[in-house]
């Protein structure tokens, strides 16, 4: 029987990287402070020591350079794994990601498909203010040619990261830093992968479909537990893959519940919740018993002191859920 261990998300990610570096000699890890220091969140700790500074290395402080260079490394036959220190700092590399990485396979008629995976801690909840809290998933989901994957716990983190590293597509792998250490789980120590683009039903229920990802999962589960106390039975779905996304699972759920609330940290307008609602209302129109709603960050920059007001919490989620159920 496979061994298991109690790991937090950072350890699970580190384990996935370690196993990849071990199995795939073309894999390299690059980013700011990822080498000797092991990354500001320690996700790459110990890897430079183990695999050498040619395969795990610090870069100059320039995200556009990091991603641009990684694309070139991918073209040259390596499997670069990039860390962007905070998702808020991915924007200097936006052109390289959106105009180059995302389009390289398509525009070359499949002759080149640089296998670049970009890991980056994202989201709020750590008192990081404007620039250590943003959730940029919608930007990337709107960019054809990218995968966007978000784990919600250690088991998912390891399995999805290994799954993403097996696939040849460019991946934006968003790590909910707020639960980096909070979420611990008993997970297999062996190599395993989770399928991409498959949503996970985290809690079964019949009254409402609550959809979220990353650090909003514990919030939603908390809200569902509170709702249970009020006599409501909520289904909670962990989207896991934002792009492509598993519409099928959502639609099946909403066909049953007739109601959906999407929860995300990013600002509401044109966030990924909008996409899910637009798609679900089209596919499950006849089954809708209430408007599909969103509980999200507000249309403001991410605040510092008032962060707790900005971030969706169980109370706000519960209120929206109850309102939808009572519609």
């Amino acid at each position, binding site marked *: 029987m496979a061994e298991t261990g109690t790991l937090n998300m950072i350890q699970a990610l580190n384990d996935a990287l370690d196993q990849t570096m071990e199995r795939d000699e073309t894999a390299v890890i690059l980013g*700011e*402070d990822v*080498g*000797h*220091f092991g990354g*500001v969140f320690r996700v790459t700790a110990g890897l430079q020591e183990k695999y050498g*500074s040619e395969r795990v290395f*610090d*870069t*100059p*402080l*320039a995200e*556009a*350079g990091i991603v641009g260079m990684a694309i070139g490394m991918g073209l040259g036959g390596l499997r670069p794994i990039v860390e962007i220190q905070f998702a*808020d*700092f991915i*924007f*200097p590399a936006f052109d390289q990601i959106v105009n180059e990485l995302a389009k390289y396979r398509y525009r070359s008629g499949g002759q080149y498909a640089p296998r670049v995976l970009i890991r980056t801690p994202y989201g709020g909840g750590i*008192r*990081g*203010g*404007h*620039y*250590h809290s943003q959730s940029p998933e919608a930007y990337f989901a709107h960019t054809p040619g990218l995968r966007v994957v978000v784990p919600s716990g250690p088991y998912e983190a390891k399995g999805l990261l290994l799954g993403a590293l097996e696939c040849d597509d460019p991946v934006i792998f968003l790590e909910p830093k707020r639960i980096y250490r909070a979420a611990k789980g008993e997970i297999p120590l062996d190599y395993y992968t989770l399928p991409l683009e498959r949503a996970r039903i985290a809690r079964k229920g019949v009254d409402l479909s609550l959809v979220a990802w990353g650090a909003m999962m514990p919030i939603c589960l908390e809200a569902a537990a509170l709702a249970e106390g*009020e006599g409501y039975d909520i289904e909670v779905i962990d989207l896991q893959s934002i792009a492509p996304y598993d519409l099928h699972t959502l639609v099946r759920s909403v066909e049953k519940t007739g109601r959906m609330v999407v929860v995300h940290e990013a600002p*509401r*307008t044109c966030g990924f919740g909008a996409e899910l609602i637009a798609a679900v209302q089209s596919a499950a129109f006849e089954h809708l018993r209430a408007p599909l709603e969103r509980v999200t960050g*507000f*249309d*403001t*920059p991410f*605040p*510092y*002191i*008032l962060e707790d*007001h*900005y971030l969706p919490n169980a*109370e*706000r989620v*519960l*209120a929206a859920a*109850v*309102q939808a159920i*009572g519609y």
Partner: protein
Amino acid sequence: MTEPSPIHSAAPIQILGEDGSCADEHRGLLSDEQVVQALEAMVLNRILDRRLLMLQRQGRLGFWMTSRGEEATILGAAVALEPEDPIFLSYRELGCLLWRQIPLAMIFNQLIGNGRDVCLGRQMPVHYCYREWSIPSVSAPVGTQLPHAAGFGYAARLRGTGQVALAFCGEGTASQGDFHTALNFAGVFASPSIFLIRNNGYAISTPESVQTAAESLAVRGEGYGLPGLQVDGNDLLAVVKVVGEAAARARAGDGPTLIEALTYRMGAHSTADDPSAYRSDEEAEAWTRLDPFERLKRHGAWRGVWNEELEAETHARLDQRVVSTLAECEKIPPPRVETLFEGVLETVSPQLEAQRDEYLAMHRRRSEGGYEVP
């Protein structure tokens, strides 16, 4: 452990001797009074670094970044400029605020993010903005401020204000694309601006040697058609001289200057960092011998305007002010929840208005008696 590279090879501009003396021709760079003011600012800087670090450790402050070891570079720039010259800070330049005499309470209000913070507690500590003192808004993405300085300089010239814009950045930040565009645009448009690299040897854990294979960063100036100089960043007088001359050139219409100040980050990168994980004690130790505060103290003594009693007295006086001001500022309540929704655009958008109304209704219910299932 990765061996840290030897730091700073080239020979920078220096003025202050080991013993605190300087050549006669340079004495006039600062008046005796200014030397005392600078020493007072350094005393205050160190007090703040110590007190705020403590405060952070006690959980009373979210975050702090010390500037210990880099005070001469930071202060020197402020000293050399006119008060109306905008200084685009990176984040580690508390000394500029102190030189410009921004009230301590205003600084603390920002750090705490209380209801009197001019920025309404919207950003993390050290992300200052004080328009009244020509300090534009600090942001975390490094290097973004550099083209702003180029543009501000352009505006100043076109509007005839006579201002010169100075932007700080770290040697790590000089690797960003924004560094390139800023210096290149400034050069092409002869923008009255100054780009001052605080080369303190590290970008978090990453040593200078990983940022560039060049002999120096100053040498990049030539690639943009501007003077590029290295200065001993721990030598206040040298920094004042170099920045002052750059400002004079800029005001005379002779365009921008790149300055690389060689210094050392004596403390951690921030309160989230532990430098012992990536650099040797000996290295840090060696740099304490070059401590810019000690150096300026010797200069003060050499001029006969500073001594231990004066320092002790100053320290006590300022420390007292810090403690009492802090206590006052900590009492101020946080910004009103409503402010979260204000000032994104000039007027509140209908989308945000709806979000606000919904949230505030819930918030009021909550304040009036715990949360409530609607």
